[in-house]
């Protein structure tokens, strides 16, 4: 990934969205076809940084998300590469008909960088939480779906999105993320999981802020329990790295998914589909928001409340290690 000029210091002092804004502005310098669009959330999503440098290339369409996404489609039809930023809840739901018909159906080169995803705007409540977008956007043909783990990975994902033709949806958080990556040399590739921790006892597959929790949990499991957990940062939900999932099933026979999203339809469901079609059995648990509208609170408190913070993952991993699934006497494979 040439030209990425961010440092540890940047990722420490800039929020994830600020890193997005900086990356986009850098890309725009080299690529005049890049434009930005927002719906009165230039500041909150940090796409406004683009407008500070290139005022004529940022379009604020007011609080009108359907028009926002349709306009982006029109620009893409004329050869521009529009980056669209509003909150995830509005990108994936308020303007979904336009996302579906104008952008995905026509396979247009629109990059949707949706912020305040998952429960990261925790105190705002369910009108501003977004725990459905991975499920919704995964069902849009032609669309690639990415949930980066931190600011550094967001910068990589935004660049990869530019280099990948067609619609891309990236969901990032409000504010700062726990830092997972210290430098850009970790081999980011769209559609390929990153192995953050080696292991053969079980595999934790995570995306977004749950990646940091998963890695911390794996460290504790190794130190305290002697359990070796493989941790996969599954930043790309679609196309999913099915090979990495199948390898995890084969190598570890125990899988946990962790995501800042409803357990219905997101990463856990995508992984479950691969497991089911692999024809191999394994012990499997999905961690995330348990098909409910969330309580209000700080993001990290909500992750703890619903059991996909470090402690929640730890507890599930220990439980799963005790699961007796291999000697299933009732299994009848004679049919």
């Amino acid at each position, binding site marked *: 990934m040439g030209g990425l000029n961010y440092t540890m210091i940047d990722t420490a002092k800039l929020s994830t969205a600020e890193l997005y804004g900086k990356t986009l502005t850098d890309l725009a310098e080299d690529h005049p076809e890049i*434009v930005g669009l927002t719906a009165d959330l230039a500041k909150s999503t940090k796409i406004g940084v683009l407008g500070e440098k290139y005022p*004529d*290339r940022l*379009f604020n*369409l*007011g609080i*009108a998300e*359907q*028009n*926002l*996404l*349709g*306009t*982006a*489609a*029109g*620009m*893409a*039809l*004329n*050869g*521009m590469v*529009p980056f669209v930023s509003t909150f995830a809840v509005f990108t994936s739901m308020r303007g979904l*008909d*336009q996302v579906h*018909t*104008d952008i995905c*159906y*026509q*396979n247009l080169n629109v990059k949707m960088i949706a912020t305040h995803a998952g429960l990261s705007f925790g105190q705002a409540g369910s009108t501003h939480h977004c725990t459905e977008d991975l499920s919704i956007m995964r069902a849009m043909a032609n669309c690639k779906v990415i949930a980066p783990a931190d600011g550094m990975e967001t910068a990589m994902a935004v660049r990869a999105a530019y280099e990948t033709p067609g619609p891309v949806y990236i969901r990032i958080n409000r504010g700062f993320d726990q830092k997972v990556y210290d430098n850009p040399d970790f081999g980011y590739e769209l559609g390929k999981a990153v192995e953050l921790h080696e292991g053969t006892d079980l595999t934790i597959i995570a995306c977004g802020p749950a990646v940091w929790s998963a890695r911390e949990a794996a460290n504790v499991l190794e130190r305290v329990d002697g359990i070796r957990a493989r941790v996969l940062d599954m930043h790309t939900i679609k196309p999913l790295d099915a090979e990495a999932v199948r390898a995890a099933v084969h190598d570890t026979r125990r899988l946990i998914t962790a995501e800042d999203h409803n357990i219905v339809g997101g990463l856990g469901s995508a992984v479950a589909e691969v497991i089911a079609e692999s024809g191999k059995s394994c012990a499997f648990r999905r961690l995330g928001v348990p098909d409910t509208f969330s309580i209000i609170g700080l993001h990290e408190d909500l992750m703890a409340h619903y059991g996909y913070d470090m402690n929640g993952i730890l507890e599930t991993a220990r439980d799963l290690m005790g699961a007796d699934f291999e000697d299933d006497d009732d299994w009848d494979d004679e049919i």
Partner: protein
Amino acid sequence: MGVEREELLRLEEKARDLRKLIIDTVVWAGSGHVGGALSSIDIITLLYYKYLNIDPTRPDWEDRDRFILSKGHIGVGFAPVLADLGFIDHKLLKTYNHTGSELGMHLDRAKVPGLDASTGSLGHGLPIALGLGLSARLKGQSFKTYCLMGDGECDEGSIWEAAMAIAHYKLTSVIPIVDRNRCMIDGRTNDVMILEPFCDKWRAFGFNVIEVDGHDMPALCEALDTAAEAQDKPIAIIANTKKGCGVEFMADNYRYHYASFDAEKAEACKIDIDKYHDARAAAL
């Protein structure tokens, strides 16, 4: 631009022939949105045979004028135009709606050369037109983008979101045209959802409005000429039309939003269309 009598007669003939081809296409398709196709066809004829700067041999030419068929359900009224101009093979019309055909009820840009956007879900066209217009301005292109909407379609909030933005950006290169046939699937627009004061609504959203008879070619020419020269304030054209225009039993009848008929009835339609256009030509 203006229009000479000879050209008008040629355009009248073209509209007549396209009306008949639409009727044939509905028969080939088995059924279709014939009412709205016939209310729009005079507007589309003028755009495609007089106003749009296009080249059927280069459907992707980047400086061409754009036409966004926001009322995407009248594909059955638009595909005949693309076939007549040579964008698509005329024979394709006979496959309309057939399994695996390139042509379905709502046309797909990926399959239909000359189609500037895939539409069908209502209220989408004007935002797309806005995006085309804004990007053209940024790139220094001078093409115009015409967007044809239904009046019932204007119930959709996204039309007004885009209208507000077109006025905000003083984007006179985007020309919204409303086919005001006063009908929608479930009844008259006045009965289902009142749009009036319709022209005032567009004015309130920042447009100069030209209200015109959408089946009067000279009047439509004047409106399109004026709209093309808008300077600081965009112009919306509200074209008063009749659903099913040209066929007596369909004219102004909302029940012919979508219809099917056999070859015999189609011939009766064509006799009506001849009579209707003879009268129009005689009045020129």
